[in-house]
């Protein structure tokens, strides 16, 4: 029987809100899908679009961005910068063959540990429905480096 597809999620969480929420989820012993690898960044505004695209290129099936609620950014407006980039990159991804749902932005405050559970579980379900991002080797174009 083929194993069920387990999507990989790279989650960029801001230091002041969403990372603390994930911490709270842990200390509260909230159970949720183990598919997300969390990368702590100081602010969602620090998330360069390069980080997102590199995650997809390196094998992530989904990318999750977590930041402070609007108005709550530790650095005043970093989360607005993240939002603007997110809205623009959402227009780029379908052109690259990446469904919009593979990238998600959520505002999760330090008090919302259970929201981390809900969002990650939802995302895992969505990604299982979408399937792996990359086709299997042999079904996609050959690399020149390998052609040699």
């Amino acid at each position, binding site marked *: 029987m083929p194993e069920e597809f387990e999507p990989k999620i790279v989650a960029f969480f801001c230091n002041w809100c969403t990372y603390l929420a994930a911490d709270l989820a842990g200390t509260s012993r909230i159970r949720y899908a183990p598919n997300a690898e969390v990368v702590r960044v100081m602010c969602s505004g620090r998330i360069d679009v390069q980080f997102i695209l590199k995650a997809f290129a390196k094998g992530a099936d989904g990318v999750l961005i977590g930041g402070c609620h609007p108005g709550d950014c530790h650095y005043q407006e970093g989360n607005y910068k993240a939002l603007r*980039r997110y809205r*623009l990159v959402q227009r780029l991804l379908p052109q690259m063959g990446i469904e919009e749902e593979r990238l998600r932005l959520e505002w999760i405050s330090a008090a919302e540990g259970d929201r981390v559970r809900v969002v990650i579980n939802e995302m895992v379900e969505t990604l299982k429905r979408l399937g792996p*991002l990359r086709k299997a080797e042999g079904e996609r174009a050959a690399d020149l480096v390998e052609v040699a």
Partner: protein
Amino acid sequence: MKPKVAFYWCASCGGCEEAVLDLAEAVLDVAAAVDIVFWPVALDFKEADVAGMDDGAIAISFVNGAVRTSHQLEMARLLRRKSKLVVAFGACAQLGGIPGLANLTTASGVLDEVYRDMAVPLRESREDGATLTLPELFDAVFALDRAIPVDYYVPGCPPSTKVVADAFQALLRDPPPEPGTVLAPNQAMCDECPRRDRRPEDVKLARFYGVEERAIDPADCILAQGFPCLGPATRAGCGARCIKGNMPCTGCFGPTSAVRDYGAKALCSIASIVSGNEVEEIDGTLDGIADPVGTFYRYSLPASFLGGQAGNLPHGRQ
């Protein structure tokens, strides 16, 4: 003995060849200083002449164009073997260039689009007992350094005369530049923009325009006027020639050395100047950018992290 130099073109438009000729009188100095042993666009040497040389006999090969056919790959490998240095010349060789936008589809997608309802050339045909073959068209377009190791890069679509002349100088210098160097200033295009002083301290835009939508003021910062000018994300060296032609920068010189994925960084720089904080407001502003890949990855899709259609392709530049 004068050093031997070769020029070759892969998937390109010929503009890079023009860029060499644009050196005008200076091209004669180049011709006097070196022995040009191969240059299909201008001289009658053949592939077999190159194949007959000793390995490493050519001092520098300048290769422009992306790699998208089996013959281009063969030629790139041949020149690599015969040359001490290989220079990726121009945006297509450096980053994949305009032909690289084909990575949004596959080889058959390209052929269907171009030859729709027409005769499609056969890979192999027989004529008077001889078999004629066409090179294989790869499913993806590659920057030159995905096909062979590349020593230096000369950016631009095409490289500007100054960048070409400076690159020749740099290559003749002792010691030579660090391997892997992009032979152009490592700073943003804005730094050499004649409208630099007209750029407001803090650009905030509520609307973007296409160049076809309204006239561009010939004196003010083009970005501040609402046209997505990619100067802030693009390497200098062109002499701001598009700006001088009253058009926004489209990023042909690619990124500075601090950036790995040009389009992602250009996208960040444009998104960062959107004024709104609400989703609807932001989306309204972004409606002015009709084609994000075409805007931000016009010259660099094959060298990007994703490379194009993410599921279909081998990884881009890591």
